[in-house]
């Protein structure tokens, strides 16, 4: 190949210049993306449009787990093009991304089987599309009935609408309609020309993943502003991320127990989650870690007291969680509610481009901490855990295994942290971003890969900011999981994934 057709970058490394990224004719773009995605070790982590002075430019990022690189493909639409050949029929994992580009910019992807709104963004191209007239899939039949649930659900959770088509008690099809949580976050990242405001925004993308998103944002800023942070701080960030993973996995285990009426498991896990988030509060004053992660430094650098308290708490949690998890995953009455319920096959998960937990519970080795390591994971290899069966049991069991692993990781990291030189790093807010760059940052949050990308203009201002929560790809996994299941098993499937509404709606 004489001429490079795409740019290759590493997670959080020096970002390429915008003009270095080759702009391809669409047919070449199409062929390349299709060809690239044939390898199951590669998947799309982001694909979106950027409107620059009236011209729409598409960027597609494909993570290659073989060599920890990210390939960036680009295409520029000329002014008259509004129809492109859809890649989705060949690579279904692009379905949600093409839908988003269609919704925001009106580009029609010819051949896309499901060209429906993603989130009813306030900047959508067709304002006549409103959230109340979503085009649900229907089947005309005397035998079937539809069940609509939401946007407001029975519990204290976020809103979204689920439309089931059922044959008796059996679900034939579930369509998930989101958008109720749309707050216009991506536009606010551009409009708010203040670095602290952007930090607060990043923590509010999904409050259950405050640390994950704040870290993705901070890394992105650091790579584009040329800021380096100490190893001690990198370790602290990994510890924070693992604490978040621990808290949510244990909390979700409580929720799973609640759904199958195993009260002992529910209350014990609830109390254990409290211990973890209270340790986070002891560290930074906020139970969910808001304020803990900042670009360039930290307002809450760890000290020996905090480290000691975290170690005490997680040792206690590890023992007690071990005792209760032993019951949860061995009682026949519970196993019969978990096993073979909501099965997603490995092929299905690969096809839809599932990430994080949703992929690992189907036996797919996809974990950014291992495949595209960031922060101190680059120097501290961790074990990539998978469970093969793809059912509710697998998703519960994976959480169980990851809890045990996170405890080990935190213990190991604190030990190394103690030996590291502690440099006082205060957060950096008066940074200057490099001009005309494309930056990408991916982080493995507890749900899966969080991806933040930014494009800067010639003045180093943020021209485009794009957020992708793992939920965006994984919602479809939930829809597939409940096919041919009893509708009464929907809640347990939903809890087993615990996907983010606001992370999708932005």
């Amino acid at each position, binding site marked *: 190949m004489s001429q490079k057709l795409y740019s290759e970058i590493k997670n959080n490394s020096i970002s390429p210049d915008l003009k270095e990224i080759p702009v391809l004719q669409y047919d070449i773009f199409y062929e390349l993306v299709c060809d690239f995605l044939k390898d199951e070790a590669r998947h799309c982590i982001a694909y979106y449009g950027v409107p620059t002075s009236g011209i729409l430019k598409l960027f597609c990022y494909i993570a290659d787990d073989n060599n920890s690189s990210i390939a960036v493909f680009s295409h520029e639409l000329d002014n008259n093009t509004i129809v492109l050949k859809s890649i989705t029929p060949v690579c279904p994992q692009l379905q949600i991304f093409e839908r988003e580009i269609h919704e925001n910019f009106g580009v029609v992807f010819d051949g896309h089987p499901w060209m429906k709104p993603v989130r009813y963004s306030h900047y959508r191209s067709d304002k006549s599309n409103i959230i109340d007239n979503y085009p649900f899939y229907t089947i005309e039949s005397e035998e079937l009935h539809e069940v609509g649930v939401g946007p407001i659900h029975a519990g*204290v959770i976020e809103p979204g609408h689920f439309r089931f088509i059922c044959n008796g008690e059996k679900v034939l099809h579930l369509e998930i309609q989101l958008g109720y949580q749309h707050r216009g976050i991506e536009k606010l990242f551009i409009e708010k020309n203040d670095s602290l405001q952007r930090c607060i925004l990043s923590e509010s993308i999904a409050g259950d993943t405050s640390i994950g998103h704040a870290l993705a944002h901070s890394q992105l800023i650091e790579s584009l502003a040329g800021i380096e942070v100490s190893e001690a701080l990198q370790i602290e960030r990994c510890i924070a991320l693992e604490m978040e993973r621990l808290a949510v996995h244990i909390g979700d285990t409580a929720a799973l127990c609640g759904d199958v009426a195993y009260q002992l498991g529910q209350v014990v896990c609830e109390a254990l989650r409290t211990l973890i988030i209270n340790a986070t509060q002891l560290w930074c004053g906020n139970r969910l870690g808001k304020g803990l992660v900042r670009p360039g430094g930290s307002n809450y650098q760890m000290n020996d007291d905090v480290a000691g308290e975290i170690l005490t708490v997680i040792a206690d949690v590890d023992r007690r969680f071990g005792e209760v998890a032993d019951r949860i995953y061995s009682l026949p009455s519970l196993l019969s509610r978990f096993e073979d319920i909501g099965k997603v096959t490995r092929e299905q998960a690969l096809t839809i481009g599932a990430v994080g937990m949703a992929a690992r519970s189907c036996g797919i080795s996809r974990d950014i901490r291992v495949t595209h390591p960031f922060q101190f994971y680059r120097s501290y290899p961790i074990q990539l855990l998978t469970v093969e069966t793809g059912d509710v049991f697998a998703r519960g069991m994976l959480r169980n295994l990851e809890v045990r692993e996170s405890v080990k990781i935190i213990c190991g990291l604190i030990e190394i942290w103690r030996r590291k030189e502690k440099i006082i790093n205060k957060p950096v807010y008066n940074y200057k971003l490099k001009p005309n760059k494309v930056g990408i940052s991916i982080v493995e949050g507890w749900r899966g890969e969080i991806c933040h990308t930014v494009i800067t203009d010639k003045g180093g201002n943020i021209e485009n900011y794009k957020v992708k929560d793992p939920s965006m790809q994984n919602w479809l996994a939930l829809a597939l999981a409940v096919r041919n299941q009893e509708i009464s098993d929907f809640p347990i499937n939903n809890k087993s994934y615990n996907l983010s509404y606001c992370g999708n709606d932005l």
Partner: protein
Amino acid sequence: MLKEIKVLKSHGRQYIKNLRTQPVSGLFRGRPVISGEITPDEIISVSSMCPVKAIDKRSGSIDLGRCVFCKECSFALPEKIRFTNDYRIASNVRGNLIIKSGTESPVRLEEDRVRKEIRRLFKNSLKLRQVSAGGDNSCEMELNATGNVNFDFGRYGIEFVASPRHADGIVITGPLSENMAEALKICYEAIPEPKIIILAGTDAISGGIFDGSPALNRKFIEEHHIDLYVPGNPAHPLTYINGVMDMLGIK
């Protein structure tokens, strides 16, 4: 069975005995105290750095209905602004959330302005419907926690219910997204009279960091009387619990 008993034994007693006085970590960011000696220049500097314009440019007061509790003003001026771990910061009067400089006094709930029927009808049993309208799931998780084994707010007969028809009021989280405006209205209308409205979290009270976004529709807040404001980012379970207890007149 023996294994279950072992689990229970390890679990021990987790519930918080006194929800009024439970201590929280010293770093918890609760009610701020602004020194009376803060200078006009210092006020301007922290006011301009505040990400949510919660600090008044002239007086230096901090509006907890806008504050996202990032504590950056205190990091910049540790001698003049500090955040105490006082979590009892909810009030029924919006203006009382504004903390003036030079005062150490707690945030007050004005008993005489609580609607009479609220205490008469709901003091021993209050069922609430929660609606998240753009909430980021942090406030939602903390509200869920109020009913868990630690906080056990249900001990006072105060719980969340599934149907608005069974509810005595609504607890709103999130900055009120346009896409949820209609659903929120329908839900509120389905609650029988008399009904109360509680706003939990800074996003709900003022829009927080999302204030001014065209994706919001905050008409509902403007059009209705709010019975309780619960600040926080997210609102701490104890802030919510103490606020509701104060509103109902539970000692």
